[in-house]
Protein backbone atom coordinates (compact mmCIF):
# COMPACT_ATOMS: atom_id res chain seq x y z
CA UNK A 1 0.00 0.00 0.00
CA UNK A 2 1.22 3.48 -0.91
CA UNK A 3 1.29 6.08 1.84
CA UNK A 4 0.54 9.77 1.25
CA UNK A 5 -0.35 12.75 3.40
CA UNK A 6 -2.92 13.88 0.85
CA UNK A 7 -4.67 12.14 -2.04
CA UNK A 8 -6.55 14.40 -4.45
CA UNK A 9 -9.18 12.70 -6.60
CA UNK A 10 -9.49 14.60 -9.88
CA UNK A 11 -6.86 16.64 -11.76
CA UNK A 12 -9.04 19.43 -13.11
CA UNK A 13 -8.90 23.04 -11.92
CA UNK A 14 -10.28 22.10 -8.48
CA UNK A 15 -7.87 19.23 -7.81
CA UNK A 16 -4.82 21.13 -9.04
CA UNK A 17 -5.58 24.29 -7.04
CA UNK A 18 -6.30 22.25 -3.89
CA UNK A 19 -3.09 20.22 -4.24
CA UNK A 20 -0.97 23.31 -4.89
CA UNK A 21 -2.45 25.16 -1.92
CA UNK A 22 -1.86 22.17 0.36
CA UNK A 23 1.75 22.08 -0.84
CA UNK A 24 2.12 25.81 -0.19
CA UNK A 25 0.79 25.19 3.33
CA UNK A 26 3.54 22.64 3.94
CA UNK A 27 2.01 19.25 3.10
CA UNK A 28 4.86 16.97 1.99
CA UNK A 29 3.53 13.91 0.18
CA UNK A 30 0.69 14.64 -2.23
CA UNK A 31 -0.75 12.58 -5.09
CA UNK A 32 -3.28 13.63 -7.73
CA UNK A 33 -5.33 10.84 -9.34
CA UNK A 34 -6.85 11.73 -12.72
CA UNK A 35 -9.03 9.53 -14.89
CA UNK A 36 -8.26 11.28 -18.21
CA UNK A 37 -4.96 11.13 -20.10
CA UNK A 38 -3.88 14.60 -18.99
CA UNK A 39 -4.41 17.06 -16.18
CA UNK A 40 -6.77 19.96 -16.86
CA UNK A 41 -10.21 18.41 -16.68
CA UNK A 42 -13.03 19.85 -18.74
CA UNK A 43 -11.07 23.09 -19.37
CA UNK A 44 -9.15 21.25 -22.10
CA UNK A 45 -12.22 21.29 -24.36
CA UNK A 46 -13.44 24.78 -23.37
CA UNK A 47 -11.43 26.60 -26.02
CA UNK A 48 -13.44 29.85 -25.79
CA UNK A 49 -12.07 32.75 -23.77
CA UNK A 50 -13.44 34.36 -20.63
CA UNK A 51 -11.62 32.27 -18.01
CA UNK A 52 -9.41 33.92 -15.42
CA UNK A 53 -10.85 37.45 -15.46
CA UNK A 54 -11.23 37.38 -11.67
CA UNK A 55 -8.29 35.20 -10.67
CA UNK A 56 -5.60 36.29 -13.13
CA UNK A 57 -7.14 39.58 -14.32
CA UNK A 58 -6.75 38.27 -17.87
CA UNK A 59 -9.12 36.76 -20.38
CA UNK A 60 -7.78 33.26 -21.04
CA UNK A 61 -9.09 30.22 -22.91
CA UNK A 62 -9.82 27.05 -20.93
CA UNK A 63 -6.62 25.23 -21.95
CA UNK A 64 -4.54 28.32 -21.10
CA UNK A 65 -6.14 28.61 -17.65
CA UNK A 66 -5.53 24.91 -17.02
CA UNK A 67 -1.96 25.15 -18.29
CA UNK A 68 -1.03 27.79 -15.69
CA UNK A 69 -1.85 25.23 -12.99
CA UNK A 70 -0.42 22.22 -14.84
CA UNK A 71 2.91 24.08 -15.11
CA UNK A 72 2.91 24.80 -11.38
CA UNK A 73 2.09 21.19 -10.52
CA UNK A 74 4.92 20.01 -12.78
CA UNK A 75 7.38 22.28 -10.97
CA UNK A 76 6.60 20.59 -7.64
CA UNK A 77 7.18 16.98 -6.64
CA UNK A 78 3.44 16.39 -6.34
CA UNK A 79 2.89 12.89 -7.78
CA UNK A 80 0.39 12.64 -10.61
CA UNK A 81 -1.20 9.46 -11.92
CA UNK A 82 -3.27 9.99 -15.07
CA UNK A 83 -5.42 7.35 -16.80
CA UNK A 84 -6.26 6.29 -13.28
CA UNK A 85 -9.76 5.63 -12.06
CA UNK A 86 -10.57 5.77 -8.36
CA UNK A 87 -13.14 3.09 -7.62
CA UNK A 88 -13.61 3.25 -3.86
CA UNK A 89 -12.74 5.00 -0.63
CA UNK A 90 -12.37 2.48 2.19
CA UNK A 91 -12.57 3.11 5.94
CA UNK A 92 -9.36 4.63 7.28
CA UNK A 93 -9.17 6.90 4.23
CA UNK A 94 -7.76 4.30 1.87
CA UNK A 95 -8.27 5.23 -1.77
CA UNK A 96 -8.64 2.30 -4.18
CA UNK A 97 -7.76 3.07 -7.79
CA UNK A 98 -6.96 1.20 -10.95
CA UNK A 99 -4.95 1.79 -14.13
CA UNK A 100 -3.17 -0.16 -16.87
CA UNK A 101 0.34 -0.01 -15.39
CA UNK A 102 -0.22 -0.45 -11.67
CA UNK A 103 -3.29 -2.67 -11.83
CA UNK A 104 -5.08 -2.21 -8.54
CA UNK A 105 -3.68 0.53 -6.31
CA UNK A 106 -4.33 1.15 -2.63
CA UNK A 107 -3.32 4.53 -1.27
CA UNK A 108 -3.45 5.25 2.42
CA UNK A 109 -3.90 8.99 2.85
CA UNK A 110 -4.17 11.09 5.99
CA UNK A 111 -6.53 13.42 4.12
CA UNK A 112 -8.48 13.11 0.86
CA UNK A 113 -9.77 15.91 -1.34
CA UNK A 114 -12.71 15.07 -3.59
CA UNK A 115 -12.44 17.09 -6.81
CA UNK A 116 -14.24 14.91 -9.35
CA UNK A 117 -16.22 17.71 -10.97
CA UNK A 118 -19.62 17.23 -12.53
CA UNK A 119 -21.22 15.75 -15.61
CA UNK A 120 -24.06 16.83 -17.83
CA UNK A 121 -27.64 15.77 -17.29
CA UNK A 122 -28.26 13.22 -20.05
CA UNK A 123 -31.21 12.65 -22.36
CA UNK A 124 -32.43 9.80 -20.18
CA UNK A 125 -33.16 12.28 -17.39
CA UNK A 126 -35.58 14.23 -19.60
CA UNK A 127 -37.96 11.52 -20.81
CA UNK A 128 -38.34 12.97 -24.32
CA UNK A 129 -40.28 10.41 -26.39
CA UNK A 130 -38.55 9.18 -29.54
CA UNK A 131 -36.20 6.46 -30.74
CA UNK A 132 -32.51 6.25 -30.02
CA UNK A 133 -31.53 7.91 -33.29
CA UNK A 134 -27.96 9.13 -33.59
CA UNK A 135 -27.49 12.87 -33.44
CA UNK A 136 -28.83 13.40 -29.92
CA UNK A 137 -26.09 14.27 -27.45
CA UNK A 138 -25.15 16.64 -24.66
CA UNK A 139 -23.61 19.98 -25.62
CA UNK A 140 -20.40 18.98 -23.85
CA UNK A 141 -20.11 15.80 -25.92
CA UNK A 142 -20.43 17.88 -29.09
CA UNK A 143 -17.84 20.26 -27.67
CA UNK A 144 -15.40 17.39 -27.28
CA UNK A 145 -16.11 16.12 -30.81
CA UNK A 146 -15.45 19.54 -32.34
CA UNK A 147 -12.68 20.95 -30.17
CA UNK A 148 -10.63 17.86 -29.27
CA UNK A 149 -11.42 15.23 -31.89
CA UNK A 150 -11.76 17.77 -34.71
CA UNK A 151 -15.00 16.72 -36.38
CA UNK A 152 -18.49 18.13 -36.68
CA UNK A 153 -21.31 15.99 -35.29
CA UNK A 154 -24.06 17.61 -37.40
CA UNK A 155 -25.16 20.27 -39.86
CA UNK A 156 -28.60 21.41 -38.73
CA UNK A 157 -28.84 21.87 -35.02
CA UNK A 158 -31.47 22.47 -32.35
CA UNK A 159 -30.23 23.14 -28.83
CA UNK A 160 -32.39 22.38 -25.80
CA UNK A 161 -31.43 24.36 -22.71
CA UNK A 162 -29.78 27.75 -22.57
CA UNK A 163 -27.04 26.93 -20.08
CA UNK A 164 -23.66 28.41 -20.91
CA UNK A 165 -22.31 25.28 -22.61
CA UNK A 166 -25.33 25.24 -24.93
CA UNK A 167 -24.86 28.90 -25.82
CA UNK A 168 -21.12 28.48 -26.38
CA UNK A 169 -21.79 25.51 -28.65
CA UNK A 170 -24.43 27.44 -30.62
CA UNK A 171 -21.69 29.90 -31.61
CA UNK A 172 -19.02 27.25 -32.12
CA UNK A 173 -21.17 25.10 -34.44
CA UNK A 174 -22.24 28.19 -36.40
CA UNK A 175 -18.64 29.34 -36.88
CA UNK A 176 -17.81 25.87 -38.18
CA UNK A 177 -20.55 26.10 -40.80
CA UNK A 178 -23.53 24.42 -39.15
CA UNK A 179 -26.96 26.04 -39.06
CA UNK A 180 -28.22 26.41 -35.51
CA UNK A 181 -31.99 26.72 -35.87
CA UNK A 182 -32.80 27.76 -32.33
CA UNK A 183 -32.14 27.40 -28.64
CA UNK A 184 -35.19 26.28 -26.63
CA UNK A 185 -35.38 27.09 -22.93
CA UNK A 186 -38.01 25.55 -20.65
CA UNK A 187 -37.82 28.40 -18.15
CA UNK A 188 -39.06 31.94 -18.85
CA UNK A 189 -35.46 33.17 -18.50
CA UNK A 190 -32.06 31.87 -19.58
CA UNK A 191 -29.70 30.20 -17.12
CA UNK A 192 -26.72 31.44 -19.11
CA UNK A 193 -24.63 34.59 -18.71
CA UNK A 194 -25.97 37.69 -20.49
CA UNK A 195 -22.66 38.05 -22.25
CA UNK A 196 -23.07 34.61 -23.80
CA UNK A 197 -26.63 35.34 -24.94
CA UNK A 198 -25.43 38.50 -26.67
CA UNK A 199 -22.21 37.16 -28.16
CA UNK A 200 -23.26 33.57 -28.95
CA UNK A 201 -26.89 34.03 -30.04
CA UNK A 202 -27.71 37.69 -30.85
CA UNK A 203 -24.44 38.19 -32.78
CA UNK A 204 -25.28 35.28 -35.06
CA UNK A 205 -29.04 35.79 -35.28
CA UNK A 206 -29.88 32.55 -33.46
CA UNK A 207 -33.35 32.73 -31.85
CA UNK A 208 -33.74 31.98 -28.14
CA UNK A 209 -37.19 30.55 -27.48
CA UNK A 210 -38.13 30.93 -23.82
CA UNK A 211 -40.82 28.81 -22.11
CA UNK A 212 -40.36 26.29 -24.90
CA UNK A 213 -39.23 22.67 -24.91
CA UNK A 214 -38.69 19.63 -27.11
CA UNK A 215 -41.53 17.14 -26.67
CA UNK A 216 -40.65 14.54 -29.31
CA UNK A 217 -37.71 13.45 -31.45
CA UNK A 218 -38.17 12.05 -34.95
CA UNK A 219 -36.05 9.62 -36.96
CA UNK A 220 -34.97 6.02 -36.40
CA UNK A 221 -31.33 5.74 -37.56
CA UNK A 222 -30.49 9.43 -37.62
CA UNK A 223 -32.38 12.31 -36.07
CA UNK A 224 -34.65 13.93 -38.67
CA UNK A 225 -36.31 16.61 -36.56
CA UNK A 226 -37.88 17.50 -33.26
CA UNK A 227 -41.31 18.68 -32.17
CA UNK A 228 -41.16 21.71 -29.94
CA UNK A 229 -43.97 23.25 -27.89
CA UNK A 230 -44.48 26.25 -25.64
CA UNK A 231 -44.96 25.49 -21.95
CA UNK A 232 -47.28 27.08 -19.38
CA UNK A 233 -46.27 28.44 -15.96
CA UNK A 234 -46.17 24.86 -14.63
CA UNK A 235 -43.71 23.96 -17.42
CA UNK A 236 -46.29 21.72 -19.08
CA UNK A 237 -46.56 21.79 -22.91
CA UNK A 238 -49.51 23.86 -24.17
CA UNK A 239 -51.64 21.85 -26.64
CA UNK A 240 -51.85 23.46 -30.05
CA UNK A 241 -48.40 25.12 -29.88
CA UNK A 242 -46.55 22.08 -31.27
CA UNK A 243 -44.23 22.79 -34.17
CA UNK A 244 -41.96 20.49 -36.18
CA UNK A 245 -38.36 21.66 -36.63
CA UNK A 246 -36.16 19.81 -39.09
CA UNK A 247 -32.66 19.05 -37.75
CA UNK A 248 -30.05 16.28 -37.73
CA UNK A 249 -28.66 17.06 -34.32
CA UNK A 250 -30.16 17.85 -30.92
CA UNK A 251 -27.77 19.21 -28.31
CA UNK A 252 -28.79 19.09 -24.66
CA UNK A 253 -27.59 21.73 -22.23
CA UNK A 254 -29.98 21.02 -19.42
CA UNK A 255 -27.97 21.12 -16.25
CA UNK A 256 -24.95 19.67 -14.52
CA UNK A 257 -24.83 16.98 -11.86
CA UNK A 258 -21.92 16.76 -9.38
CA UNK A 259 -20.22 13.38 -9.78
CA UNK A 260 -20.59 12.08 -6.25
CA UNK A 261 -20.74 8.29 -6.67
CA UNK A 262 -17.52 7.86 -4.65
CA UNK A 263 -18.75 10.33 -2.06
CA UNK A 264 -21.96 8.36 -1.56
CA UNK A 265 -20.11 5.04 -1.46
CA UNK A 266 -17.95 6.49 1.29
CA UNK A 267 -21.09 7.20 3.31
CA UNK A 268 -20.58 10.98 3.21
CA UNK A 269 -23.72 13.04 3.81
CA UNK A 270 -24.98 14.78 0.66
CA UNK A 271 -26.97 18.02 0.52
CA UNK A 272 -30.17 17.19 -1.44
CA UNK A 273 -30.19 20.65 -3.08
CA UNK A 274 -26.55 21.01 -4.21
CA UNK A 275 -26.14 17.25 -4.78
CA UNK A 276 -22.70 17.78 -3.26
CA UNK A 277 -21.36 16.94 0.18
CA UNK A 278 -22.39 18.91 3.24
CA UNK A 279 -19.22 20.72 4.32
CA UNK A 280 -17.80 23.04 6.94
CA UNK A 281 -15.95 26.31 6.35
CA UNK A 282 -12.79 24.45 5.24
CA UNK A 283 -14.89 22.23 2.92
CA UNK A 284 -14.48 19.20 5.19
CA UNK A 285 -17.26 16.67 4.64
CA UNK A 286 -19.12 14.64 7.27
CA UNK A 287 -16.21 12.20 7.15
CA UNK A 288 -13.17 13.51 9.04
CA UNK A 289 -10.19 14.13 6.79
CA UNK A 290 -12.23 14.05 3.59
CA UNK A 291 -12.70 17.42 1.87
CA UNK A 292 -14.59 18.43 -1.28
CA UNK A 293 -14.25 21.37 -3.66
CA UNK A 294 -15.16 22.58 -7.13
CA UNK A 295 -18.07 21.33 -9.19
CA UNK A 296 -18.32 18.09 -7.20
CA UNK A 297 -19.35 20.23 -4.23
CA UNK A 298 -21.58 22.77 -6.00
CA UNK A 299 -21.84 23.63 -9.69
CA UNK A 300 -20.01 26.92 -10.30
CA UNK A 301 -20.47 29.53 -13.04
CA UNK A 302 -16.83 30.54 -13.16
CA UNK A 303 -13.66 28.50 -12.88
CA UNK A 304 -12.11 31.41 -10.98
CA UNK A 305 -14.45 30.63 -8.08
CA UNK A 306 -13.62 26.93 -8.34
CA UNK A 307 -9.97 27.84 -7.85
CA UNK A 308 -10.76 29.97 -4.79
CA UNK A 309 -12.93 27.29 -3.22
CA UNK A 310 -10.31 24.62 -3.86
CA UNK A 311 -7.63 26.70 -2.20
CA UNK A 312 -9.83 26.83 0.90
CA UNK A 313 -10.11 23.02 0.81
CA UNK A 314 -6.35 22.67 0.24
CA UNK A 315 -5.62 24.86 3.25
CA UNK A 316 -8.20 22.97 5.31
CA UNK A 317 -6.66 19.63 4.40
CA UNK A 318 -3.21 20.97 5.33
CA UNK A 319 -4.47 22.11 8.74
CA UNK A 320 -6.12 18.74 9.26
CA UNK A 321 -2.97 16.84 8.35
CA UNK A 322 -0.82 19.05 10.56
CA UNK A 323 -3.13 18.83 13.57
CA UNK A 324 -3.77 15.11 13.05
CA UNK A 325 -6.75 15.51 15.32
CA UNK A 326 -9.11 13.38 13.37
CA UNK A 327 -12.06 14.81 15.23
CA UNK A 328 -11.58 18.49 14.51
CA UNK A 329 -15.01 19.02 13.11
CA UNK A 330 -16.65 16.57 15.46
CA UNK A 331 -15.51 17.69 18.89
CA UNK A 332 -16.09 21.40 18.38
CA UNK A 333 -19.59 22.79 18.27
CA UNK A 334 -20.97 23.62 14.87
CA UNK A 335 -23.04 26.54 13.70
CA UNK A 336 -25.50 25.56 10.98
CA UNK A 337 -25.91 27.86 7.99
CA UNK A 338 -29.36 27.69 6.43
CA UNK A 339 -31.04 28.97 3.29
CA UNK A 340 -34.44 30.65 3.64
CA UNK A 341 -36.86 32.80 1.60
CA UNK A 342 -35.48 33.20 -1.89
CA UNK A 343 -32.21 31.38 -1.23
CA UNK A 344 -31.93 27.91 -2.71
CA UNK A 345 -28.84 26.63 -0.92
CA UNK A 346 -25.76 27.72 0.98
CA UNK A 347 -22.15 26.46 1.03
CA UNK A 348 -20.67 25.84 3.56
CA UNK A 349 -23.62 24.40 5.46
CA UNK A 350 -21.67 24.32 8.77
CA UNK A 351 -19.15 26.57 10.48
CA UNK A 352 -17.05 25.30 13.39
CA UNK A 353 -17.34 27.49 16.48
CA UNK A 354 -13.57 27.14 16.79
CA UNK A 355 -12.86 28.48 13.31
CA UNK A 356 -9.92 30.84 12.87
CA UNK A 357 -10.96 33.44 10.32
CA UNK A 358 -13.72 35.21 8.43
CA UNK A 359 -15.98 32.89 6.42
CA UNK A 360 -17.52 33.57 3.04
CA UNK A 361 -20.92 31.96 2.48
CA UNK A 362 -21.78 31.14 -1.13
CA UNK A 363 -25.35 30.71 -2.32
CA UNK A 364 -27.80 30.85 -5.19
CA UNK A 365 -31.22 32.48 -5.24
CA UNK A 366 -34.42 30.69 -6.31
CA UNK A 367 -35.69 33.29 -8.81
CA UNK A 368 -34.81 36.56 -10.47
CA UNK A 369 -35.11 39.40 -7.93
CA UNK A 370 -34.79 43.12 -8.65
CA UNK A 371 -33.81 45.68 -5.99
CA UNK A 372 -33.91 43.05 -3.27
CA UNK A 373 -31.85 42.78 -0.11
CA UNK A 374 -29.59 39.94 0.94
CA UNK A 375 -29.90 39.56 4.70
CA UNK A 376 -27.87 37.28 6.96
CA UNK A 377 -28.95 36.88 10.56
CA UNK A 378 -28.10 34.83 13.65
CA UNK A 379 -30.93 35.00 16.17
CA UNK A 380 -31.94 38.66 16.40
CA UNK A 381 -28.61 39.94 15.18
CA UNK A 382 -28.14 41.04 11.56
CA UNK A 383 -24.67 39.92 10.43
CA UNK A 384 -24.91 41.28 6.90
CA UNK A 385 -27.36 43.20 4.80
CA UNK A 386 -26.90 44.57 1.33
CA UNK A 387 -29.21 45.81 -1.37
CA UNK A 388 -28.67 44.31 -4.84
CA UNK A 389 -30.01 45.70 -8.10
CA UNK A 390 -30.40 42.22 -9.51
CA UNK A 391 -30.16 38.66 -8.25
CA UNK A 392 -30.45 35.69 -10.62
CA UNK A 393 -30.28 31.91 -10.13
CA UNK A 394 -27.53 31.75 -12.76
CA UNK A 395 -25.15 33.95 -10.76
CA UNK A 396 -23.56 32.58 -7.60
CA UNK A 397 -23.57 35.13 -4.77
CA UNK A 398 -21.39 35.34 -1.69
CA UNK A 399 -21.51 37.16 1.64
CA UNK A 400 -18.64 37.60 4.10
CA UNK A 401 -19.19 36.78 7.77
CA UNK A 402 -16.70 38.23 10.24
CA UNK A 403 -14.86 36.02 12.71
CA UNK A 404 -15.85 38.28 15.61
CA UNK A 405 -19.53 37.77 14.70
CA UNK A 406 -19.10 34.02 14.47
CA UNK A 407 -17.49 33.96 17.93
CA UNK A 408 -20.52 35.70 19.42
CA UNK A 409 -23.00 33.17 18.07
CA UNK A 410 -24.41 30.83 20.69
CA UNK A 411 -26.49 27.92 19.41
CA UNK A 412 -28.43 29.95 16.83
CA UNK A 413 -28.32 29.09 13.14
CA UNK A 414 -27.02 31.54 10.57
CA UNK A 415 -29.88 32.30 8.18
CA UNK A 416 -29.36 33.65 4.65
CA UNK A 417 -32.44 35.06 2.91
CA UNK A 418 -33.64 37.52 0.30
CA UNK A 419 -35.95 40.38 1.33
CA UNK A 420 -37.95 41.99 -1.43
Amino acid at each position, binding site marked *: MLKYDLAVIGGGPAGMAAALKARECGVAKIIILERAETLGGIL*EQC*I*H*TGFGLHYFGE*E*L*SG*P*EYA*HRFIEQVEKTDIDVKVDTMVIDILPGNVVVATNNTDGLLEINATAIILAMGCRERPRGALDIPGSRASGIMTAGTAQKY*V*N*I*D*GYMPGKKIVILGSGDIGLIMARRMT*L*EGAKVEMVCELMPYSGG*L*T*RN*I*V*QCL*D*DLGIPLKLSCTVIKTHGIERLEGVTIANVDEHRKPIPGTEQFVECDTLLLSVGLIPENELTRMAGIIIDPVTNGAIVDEYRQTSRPGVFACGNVLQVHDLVDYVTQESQIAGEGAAKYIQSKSKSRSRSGKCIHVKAQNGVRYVVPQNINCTTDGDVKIYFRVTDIFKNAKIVVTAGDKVLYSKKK*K*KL*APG*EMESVPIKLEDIKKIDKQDIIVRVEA
Partner: protein
Amino acid sequence: MKRELVCVSCPLGCPLSVELGENGDVLSVTGNTCPRGKKYAEDECTNPVRMLTSTVKVNGGKLPVVPVKTSAPIPKGKMFDCMKVINNEVVDAPIKIGDVIICNICDTGVDIIATNEV
Protein backbone atom coordinates in the same frame (compact mmCIF):
# COMPACT_ATOMS: atom_id res chain seq x y z
CA MET B 1 -32.00 55.77 -35.90
CA LYS B 2 -32.34 53.84 -32.65
CA ARG B 3 -30.57 50.67 -31.53
CA GLU B 4 -31.47 48.49 -28.57
CA LEU B 5 -28.67 46.60 -26.82
CA VAL B 6 -28.15 44.58 -23.66
CA CYS B 7 -25.04 45.65 -21.78
CA VAL B 8 -22.63 42.77 -21.02
CA SER B 9 -20.17 44.72 -18.88
CA CYS B 10 -21.54 43.08 -15.73
CA PRO B 11 -24.28 40.59 -14.72
CA LEU B 12 -26.91 43.35 -14.36
CA GLY B 13 -27.54 43.31 -18.12
CA CYS B 14 -28.98 46.84 -18.42
CA PRO B 15 -31.19 47.37 -21.48
CA LEU B 16 -29.52 50.16 -23.46
CA SER B 17 -31.12 52.45 -25.99
CA VAL B 18 -28.74 54.18 -28.39
CA GLU B 19 -29.66 57.13 -30.58
CA LEU B 20 -27.56 57.11 -33.77
CA GLY B 21 -26.91 59.99 -36.17
CA GLU B 22 -26.95 59.74 -39.95
CA ASN B 23 -23.26 58.83 -40.13
CA GLY B 24 -23.68 56.16 -37.49
CA ASP B 25 -22.24 58.39 -34.79
CA VAL B 26 -23.63 57.96 -31.28
CA LEU B 27 -25.87 60.86 -30.23
CA SER B 28 -27.08 59.55 -26.89
CA VAL B 29 -27.15 56.45 -24.69
CA THR B 30 -29.96 55.81 -22.21
CA GLY B 31 -30.79 52.90 -19.92
CA ASN B 32 -27.26 52.47 -18.61
CA THR B 33 -26.73 52.62 -14.85
CA CYS B 34 -22.98 53.23 -14.92
CA PRO B 35 -20.31 54.77 -17.20
CA ARG B 36 -19.26 51.32 -18.42
CA GLY B 37 -22.68 50.93 -20.03
CA LYS B 38 -22.22 54.12 -22.04
CA LYS B 39 -18.78 53.01 -23.20
CA TYR B 40 -20.09 49.55 -24.13
CA ALA B 41 -22.92 51.07 -26.19
CA GLU B 42 -20.56 53.44 -27.99
CA ASP B 43 -18.07 50.66 -28.79
CA GLU B 44 -20.81 48.29 -29.94
CA CYS B 45 -22.31 50.87 -32.28
CA THR B 46 -19.11 52.28 -33.75
CA ASN B 47 -16.58 49.45 -33.68
CA PRO B 48 -17.88 46.14 -32.31
CA VAL B 49 -15.05 43.65 -31.70
CA ARG B 50 -14.93 40.04 -30.56
CA MET B 51 -12.35 37.52 -29.48
CA LEU B 52 -12.46 34.62 -31.94
CA THR B 53 -11.55 31.09 -30.88
CA SER B 54 -11.42 27.97 -33.01
CA THR B 55 -9.22 25.00 -33.83
CA VAL B 56 -6.56 24.41 -36.51
CA LYS B 57 -5.66 21.07 -38.06
CA VAL B 58 -2.38 19.51 -36.86
CA ASN B 59 -0.12 17.01 -38.62
CA GLY B 60 1.77 14.47 -36.54
CA GLY B 61 0.29 15.38 -33.20
CA LYS B 62 -1.32 13.25 -30.52
CA LEU B 63 -4.55 15.14 -31.22
CA PRO B 64 -5.89 16.10 -34.68
CA VAL B 65 -6.47 19.78 -33.85
CA VAL B 66 -5.00 22.54 -31.70
CA PRO B 67 -7.18 25.25 -30.11
CA VAL B 68 -6.40 28.81 -31.18
CA LYS B 69 -7.53 32.35 -30.39
CA THR B 70 -7.05 35.81 -31.80
CA SER B 71 -4.24 37.64 -30.01
CA ALA B 72 -6.63 40.59 -29.59
CA PRO B 73 -10.30 41.21 -30.38
CA ILE B 74 -11.11 41.53 -34.12
CA PRO B 75 -13.92 43.44 -35.85
CA LYS B 76 -17.15 41.47 -35.43
CA GLY B 77 -17.88 41.59 -39.16
CA LYS B 78 -14.63 39.77 -40.01
CA MET B 79 -15.31 36.67 -37.91
CA PHE B 80 -16.49 34.47 -40.78
CA ASP B 81 -13.69 35.64 -43.13
CA CYS B 82 -11.18 34.74 -40.44
CA MET B 83 -12.85 31.33 -39.94
CA LYS B 84 -12.28 30.53 -43.64
CA VAL B 85 -8.56 31.21 -43.27
CA ILE B 86 -8.38 29.27 -40.00
CA ASN B 87 -10.15 26.27 -41.53
CA ASN B 88 -7.71 26.13 -44.46
CA GLU B 89 -4.62 26.18 -42.24
CA VAL B 90 -2.67 23.03 -41.35
CA VAL B 91 0.29 23.07 -38.96
CA ASP B 92 2.91 20.51 -37.91
CA ALA B 93 3.38 19.32 -34.34
CA PRO B 94 4.94 20.11 -31.90
CA ILE B 95 3.10 23.28 -30.97
CA LYS B 96 3.44 25.29 -27.79
CA ILE B 97 1.01 27.70 -26.13
CA GLY B 98 1.44 31.17 -27.62
CA ASP B 99 2.92 29.96 -30.94
CA VAL B 100 1.77 32.20 -33.81
CA ILE B 101 -0.23 29.99 -36.20
CA ILE B 102 -1.41 32.68 -38.64
CA CYS B 103 0.15 36.13 -38.87
CA ASN B 104 -2.02 39.23 -39.38
CA ILE B 105 -5.19 37.34 -40.25
CA CYS B 106 -7.38 39.08 -42.89
CA ASP B 107 -5.30 42.25 -42.49
CA THR B 108 -6.71 42.85 -39.02
CA GLY B 109 -3.25 43.32 -37.53
CA VAL B 110 -4.14 40.46 -35.19
CA ASP B 111 -2.42 37.05 -35.06
CA ILE B 112 -3.96 33.64 -34.50
CA ILE B 113 -2.11 31.96 -31.63
CA ALA B 114 -2.18 28.46 -30.16
CA THR B 115 -3.81 28.07 -26.74
CA ASN B 116 -2.67 24.53 -25.98
CA GLU B 117 0.21 22.16 -26.57
CA VAL B 118 0.12 19.38 -29.16
